[in-house]
């Protein structure tokens, strides 16, 4: 369980995240939603220790994240940010192998290779595993990075807008894989999403932020309704049911 307690972050004098407390439940997909600049990515960065918080703390199973060794933390929590610029030529397999770094520090054991094979299989990358990253399409590249995170084999997987720049087909593909990770392997996924319909259809819990503050936090069914969404987005969003999924039709809202 990850507990975020009264966390605040200032950029200069402006608070980007202000006094946010959230508990991330294990074995579920939790989506962070909210308008641009709400502080979703900043919050995720602080949970994953990419960024230090100014006040407040993040507890991983009751231990302060700052007190954990980087190597140990890396075996339990994985984070993937949205921009991943790499200036060396790597093949997909080499990239995924880096996921085993917290365990073997670059000297791969047979067990590592097994995990790498599994991760490649999971993301459907086995056929192209020896291709270089710069030869891939956006979707393939994203899958390669997610595959690295899967090879890292952590209880928690945090993803910052993994659907960015992906078309519908690839977005659905990735969300289905995340769902599988949670349902089949018991992982906990935290994901920053822009499209509320993906949040609505695939996540168990939703955390909504606005101007750096927590606005809503609860099971998806309680948050995907016109009233709650108005609070988050200042928009009047009709919600319709389609095959048991709640779909927000926000395209023409006032």
């Amino acid at each position: 369980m990850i507990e975020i307690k009264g966390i605040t972050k200032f950029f200069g004098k402006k608070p980007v995240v202000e006094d946010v407390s959230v508990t991330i439940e294990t074995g579920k997909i939790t989506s962070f939603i909210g308008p641009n600049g709400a502080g979703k990515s900043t919050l995720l960065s602080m949970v994953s220790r990419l960024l230090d918080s100014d006040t407040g703390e993040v507890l991983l199973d009751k231990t302060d994240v700052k007190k954990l060794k980087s190597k140990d933390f890396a075996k339990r929590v994985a984070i993937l940010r949205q921009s991943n610029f790499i200036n060396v030529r790597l093949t997909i397999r080499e990239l995924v192998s880096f996921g085993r770094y917290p365990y073997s520090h670059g000297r791969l054991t047979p067990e590592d290779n097994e995990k790498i094979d599994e991760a490649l299989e999971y993301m459907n990358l086995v056929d192209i595993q020896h291709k270089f990253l710069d030869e891939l399409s956006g979707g393939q590249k994203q899958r390669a990075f997610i595959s690295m995170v899967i090879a890292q084999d952590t209880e928690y997987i945090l993803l910052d807008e993994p659907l960015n720049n992906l078309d519908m087909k690839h977005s659905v593909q990735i969300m289905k894989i995340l769902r599988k990770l949670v349902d089949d392997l018991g992982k906990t996924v935290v994901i920053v999403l822009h499209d509320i319909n993906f949040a609505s259809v695939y996540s168990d819990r939703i955390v909504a932020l606005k101007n750096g503050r927590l606005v809503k936090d609860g099971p998806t069914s309680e948050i995907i309704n016109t009233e709650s969404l108005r609070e988050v987005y200042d928009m009047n969003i009709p919600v319709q049911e389609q095959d048991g999924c709640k779909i927000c039709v926000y395209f023409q809202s006032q």
Partner: protein
Amino acid sequence: MQNSIKKTNTIKILCLVALAILSIAGFLFYNIQGNFSYAFPKRVYRVAAMIITAIAIAYATVMFQTVTRNRILTPSMIGVDSMYEVVQTVIYFFLGSASVFVVDRYLNFGTSIVAMVLFALLLYRFLFRADKYPIFLLLLAGMIIGTLLGSLVSFLQVMIDPVEYLSLQNKLFASFTNVKSELVGISAVILIACFIYGAFLMRDLDVMNLGRDNAINLGVNYDKLVLRVLILASILIATSTALVGPITFLGLIVSNLAYQFLVTYRHSILILGASLISIIALVGGQFLVLHVFNLNTTISVIINFVGGIYFIYLLLKQSKGVAG
């Protein structure tokens, strides 16, 4: 496919080793005249100084470029070389060429290294707070302070006694013709110490290729690693500068040639390759200066000339990469 790349890399490294040995042997034995027992040890010291310099610069540059994630930067960005010029100029200006700081070469060497490393540490102490400032702020500050120190040096040099200036100039240009043989041993010790320490960082540096966020995700202590590399690079550059004088472009050329020549992300291989290329460039270049150009030019002039052209080529290539 993976294996074939590994194999060609091994072959390439072996070729570099052969070339390096060839240039060292050529330098040591070609056209050796007069008393062998007098000439040979002199050449050995010179070649040793060149090898130490070559490796130190290649090693420092590759690490530095990985940490800054920029392949057209060199550690001299931090202004360590300028600090060397300041130290020497100040010594000559205030104490004169007859002072103990010039005559005692150990003292001169030690003072320069300590001043350069202290300067770097001071800069890091105030500006390296990765959570607050990005590393580029440090580099910009280093560059500006370097320029300031450079101006200070020219100011003192304008006012200095012309005779003193001539002997000072010898100190400020890289030269392998009058290597101080007594300094080779201690430089080698420093280099080996750096290598042993650096060996522990190689694999973390490999991960650094994925960028800060991914490196932290994979359990690399980013801030600590960057600081360690910066200090290590400063010590290496300080040593080579104090031994033979400042060489600007060598690191840039050899690191980029190594990236192009060896397709790998592994720093152990990249640094080995860059060091070998560096030895070939320096020893082979000095061989050409001695036996082809008959000392009509110096190696640092050649390196700066070739390096300058290569630098422009890299800039053009990079800007094209961004546009296309």
